[in-house]
């Protein structure tokens, strides 16, 4: 299945461009904003500007991972190919594994130019965070996958009518993920929602690292634990909706 998608991307430059376009655009907008702020004041503002750039780049990991799965699945829906795929011996978990694999590739292609741009234009080196960056990456990617399995489940349940969620659902989590500000800024009633998201713990940890603090094992532990719950729940939802689609006959008619 990954060969199928890679073959598609090989001859479709608009698809490749689409992957990197938004992360690069985001980096330009927020990068200049951060430069402007950092130029007006020093110290704390420079730290805030770094947190802003780190937030933009790391949040793109979640966004691109989520979209990578959902759009790869939608490619099958749009090409009306699901009927052939699901009568092959491909098991549902193998399909999911291929979607996750494609998501990881799409995420790398999307985020790498933005990371490079941040370094070239704003002298912001994401890798300066050290090896803990890898843990941030993995946790945000897994959270993106969990959300995307939920989106794919909705597409299985509601057909192509739910495809707009592939682009929009993750943006709805941005305010609760405390990407650009600490969780403590949020109203007390919303904080538990934020703390139930693995991403909020990752960004709290990222800010701690950028401020020169030690590795935030507490936040990382929460992120890992919540990701296990999220991905487990999303997998169950996917399995349930896949079976329901087989009961309703939706796999043949999907795309209409």
């Amino acid at each position, binding site marked *: *299945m990954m*060969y*199928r998608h890679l*073959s*598609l991307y090989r*001859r*479709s430059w608009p698809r490749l461009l689409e992957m990197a376009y938004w992360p690069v655009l985001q980096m330009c907008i927020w990068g200049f904003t951060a430069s402007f702020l950092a130029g007006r004041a020093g110290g704390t503002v420079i730290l805030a500007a770094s947190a802003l750039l780190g937030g933009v780049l790391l949040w793109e990991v979640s966004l691109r991972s989520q979209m990578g799965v959902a759009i790869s699945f939608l*490619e099958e829906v749009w*090409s*009306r*190919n699901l*009927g*052939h*795929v*699901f*009568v*092959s*011996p*491909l*098991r549902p978990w193998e399909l999911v594994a291929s979607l996750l694999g494609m998501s990881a590739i799409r995420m790398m292609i999307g985020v790498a130019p933005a990371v490079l741009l941040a370094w070239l234009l704003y002298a912001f080196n994401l890798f300066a965070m050290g090896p803990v960056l890898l843990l941030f990456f993995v946790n945000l990617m897994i959270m993106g996958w969990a959300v995307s399995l939920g989106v794919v489940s909705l597409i299985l349940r509601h057909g192509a009518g739910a495809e707009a969620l592939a682009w929009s659902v993750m943006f709805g989590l941005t305010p609760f993920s405390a990407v650009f500000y600490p969780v403590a800024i949020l109203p007390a009633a919303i904080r538990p929602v934020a703390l139930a998201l693995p991403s909020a713990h990752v960004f709290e940890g990222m800010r701690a690292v950028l401020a020169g603090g030690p590795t935030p094992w507490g936040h990382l532990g929460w992120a890992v634990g919540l990701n296990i719950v999220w991905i487990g729940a999303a997998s169950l939802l996917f399995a349930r909706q896949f*079976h329901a689609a*087989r*009961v*309703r*006959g939706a*796999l*043949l008619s999907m795309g209409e």
Partner: protein
Amino acid sequence: MNVIQASGLTKTYGSTLAVDGIDFTVARGETVGLLGGNGAGKTTTIAMLLGLLVPSAGRIVILGHDIAISRFEALARMNFSSPYVALPHRLTVAENLRVYGHLYNVRHLEARIGELADELDLHSLLDRPAGQLSAGQKTRVALAKSLINHPEVLLLDEPTASLDPDTGDLVRSWLERYQAASGCSILLASHNMAEVERLCSNVLVMKQGRIVDRGSPPDLLDRYSRENLEEVFLDIARNRAAVPA
């Protein structure tokens, strides 16, 4: 030996009964036709055999595997073709065949694609995107896809629909040769009575989700005292009973 055994096969959608407790078998090397008007339950039956649709009741055993328990083992040894299910349009024919070759874990895949290209005259199409092919070319490519894994059971849903008579005849001739050479079993759903009469050794006639008659084409012609299956089909569709033997 039966390669397909369906017993009490039923599918309901809410209060709608799409397939109503049908029983049938397909023997190894046999070509069985599934006849019926629109909405008779042919496609629903095929979708249940392929595991795309979960039956409301009944049991399906294909190549010794109960589809409710171990459908993937059966699916690896069967295949399917329908003009209503597309292949990715932007991939070339060769890429499409490679994708499905990998999905079916076909050994020596490039050699197999070469064989199919020889047999179905696909060499000039291999590097063309599937979306740029004519209906006849798409049918040949869909057939190649359905044969990529040397299937022991082939399910064909109206394989010559929308083809001109010449291309339709070429496909039917090719299916005859392939079936004779490979000994695979074919279940063929079709609206083309001449096609069913030509290819099938047994026919199941469906109406409103039930199998209302069955037999070899000569048996059915004899029983309804008709010259061709189209007349038999019309007799059944319009509730004209068979002439008692």
